[in-house]
């Protein structure tokens, strides 16, 4: 009996310690539910149950075997048991208090996280969520990233002239480029304008209302022709019959085609050249030919003038300098179809003018493969939206001549 009693007492005391400890462990497990596998969970729960059962049984045994309760006082063993019970409850409370204590929690997690291999101290006691919160609660460091975005402003243009021609905003139909330079032969300064027309189908030949080969025919100023035809840009076109340099610009030289129809035909000029016009494919045609040939070729709009500056990529003035420097008007087309109207002011302080060789050279720079001279001198004019942008000059004063026709750009 005595032996059994001692056994019961030991088990009671042992389980009084064990049950709260196991409960503490259970709380930790419940806080880290994912980290512990079901085997451990089962073992702990079973251990608690077994310990609890053993505790009850051993305590019952203890009570039955010995009279532990006395009306006036508790036996020493019961006092010991109660004391141990109170102590274990206290231990249990303290463990739980410490476990949930914020400062302890942070200290433990941060201390273990300072190490490389001892992080499990924190991770086995607390959930990942808590650990992550504690670890990341400090101000987040954000180093600045280096900006490796390099802006490649690569144009891939052959040269600056190509770039000037090909850069345009919002698919504009045309653009005006002001050019300056010095002439090849004399080195004099010149100032001029290039109208770059991106779609040659918008280029038409417009005529003055009174132009023709009849007696009394008359021309109009370039601004008037442009306004009447709602032109965005206009330049003077072919030469005209001008006896004594004093005509009213009504009779154009050579064949004139407008919209595929022969509009007029008069004595061809002696400047060389021939037909300067566009066919139905909007290609600039430079060919000396008869009226019939022009009709057969399907010329859309044309004047008859010259000389030709560049034909099929060959500079006609490469080795020659037969031309004098004065105001010039010319037209040219690049391989890609872009058409250039060119005017160079002449005989003025700001611009002495240019020779045919200069014109051909300017056109070559801009990639023109076919180009022809148009009527120059006092006639040289360019109008944009109804206003002259160059300075037409008769050698003495500004002069706005009358023309039988003009190359215009319509919207």
């Amino acid at each position, binding site marked *: 009996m005595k032996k059994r009693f001692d056994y019961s007492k030991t088990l009671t005391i042992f389980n009084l310690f064990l049950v709260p400890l196991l409960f503490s462990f259970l709380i930790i497990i419940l806080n880290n539910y994912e980290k512990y596998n079901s085997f451990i969970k089962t073992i702990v729960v079973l251990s608690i149950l077994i310990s609890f059962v053993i505790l009850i049984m051993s305590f019952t045994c203890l009570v039955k075997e010995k009279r532990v309760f006395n009306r006036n006082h508790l036996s020493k063993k019961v006092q010991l048991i109660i004391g141990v019970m109170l102590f274990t409850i206290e231990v249990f409370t303290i463990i739980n208090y410490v476990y949930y204590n914020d400062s302890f929690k942070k200290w433990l997690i941060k201390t273990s996280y*300072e190490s*490389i*291999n001892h992080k499990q101290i924190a991770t086995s006691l607390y959930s990942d969520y808590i650990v992550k919160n504690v670890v990341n609660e400090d101000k987040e460091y954000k180093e600045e990233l*280096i900006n*490796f975005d*390099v802006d490649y402003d*690569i144009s*891939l243009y*052959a040269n600056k002239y190509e770039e000037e021609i090909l850069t345009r905003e919002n698919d504009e139909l045309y653009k005006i480029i002001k050019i300056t330079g010095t002439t090849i032969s004399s080195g004099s300064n010149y100032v001029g304008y290039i109208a770059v027309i991106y779609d040659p189908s918008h280029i038409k030949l417009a005529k003055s209302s009174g132009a023709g080969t009849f007696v009394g025919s008359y021309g109009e100023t370039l601004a008037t022709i442009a306004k009447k035809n709602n032109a965005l840009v206009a330049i003077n076109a072919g030469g005209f019959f001008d006896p004594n340099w004093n005509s009213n610009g009504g009779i154009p030289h050579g064949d004139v085609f407008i919209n595929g129809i022969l509009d007029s035909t008069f004595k061809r000029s002696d400047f060389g050249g021939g037909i300067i016009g566009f066919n139905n494919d909007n290609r600039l045609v430079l060919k000396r030919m008869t009226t019939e040939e022009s009709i057969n070729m399907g010329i859309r709009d044309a004047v008859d003038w010259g000389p030709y500056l560049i034909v099929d990529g060959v500079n006609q003035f490469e080795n020659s300098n037969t031309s004098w420097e004065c105001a010039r008007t010319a037209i040219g087309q690049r391989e890609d179809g872009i058409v250039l109207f060119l005017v160079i002011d002449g005989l003025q302080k700001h611009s002495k003018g240019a020779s045919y060789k200069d014109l051909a050279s300017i056109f070559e720079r801009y990639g023109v493969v076919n180009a022809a001279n148009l009527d120059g001198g006092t006639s040289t004019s360019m109008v944009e939206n109804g206003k002259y942008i160059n300075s037409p000059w008769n050698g003495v004063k500004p002069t706005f001549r009358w023309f039988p026709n003009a190359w215009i750009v319509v919207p």
Partner: protein
Amino acid sequence: MGLVLIIVGFSLIFVDNVSAGINDYYADVNKSKEIMFTVFEDYVKFENGAIDIKNEIVDVSKALDIYLEDFPIKESLIVEKINTVENDINNINLTSLELINMCKYDLNNNSMNSKCNNFKKNYIRMIDSYKKMIIVYNDVLNSYNEFIDKKVFEEYVGKVDYTVYELIK
């Protein structure tokens, strides 16, 4: 007496274990501090090198802004600049490899993590920027060949060692 010996024995084992655990912990912490120090030091080296490389790439981008007809004259100068970028990237690779190794340690130090993350991002961006530079250069080169209508220049092949890049990616 036997019980006392057992208790003393267990106590000694317990104290020894605790002492070994503490020593192990401190050795661990010292190693982590050493790693952090290396990362901080190498990161500064890497960052300075990367900024230089970035400036050199910008320099190449400016050198590439030319007209095609000028390309033959400037080609050797551009290649020289590209070679400088490549050499500097290859030089920085040693530091970068060390950073990769150090950054493998999960020390949960925000500053170190941030540096490691930035290093990786910056390295990738640096190589991508270098790759783009080579692509643009070859575009210019091919455009010149087309412009001349002849294969004057062979496509440029980069000389950068991509080991670190592959490791990070």
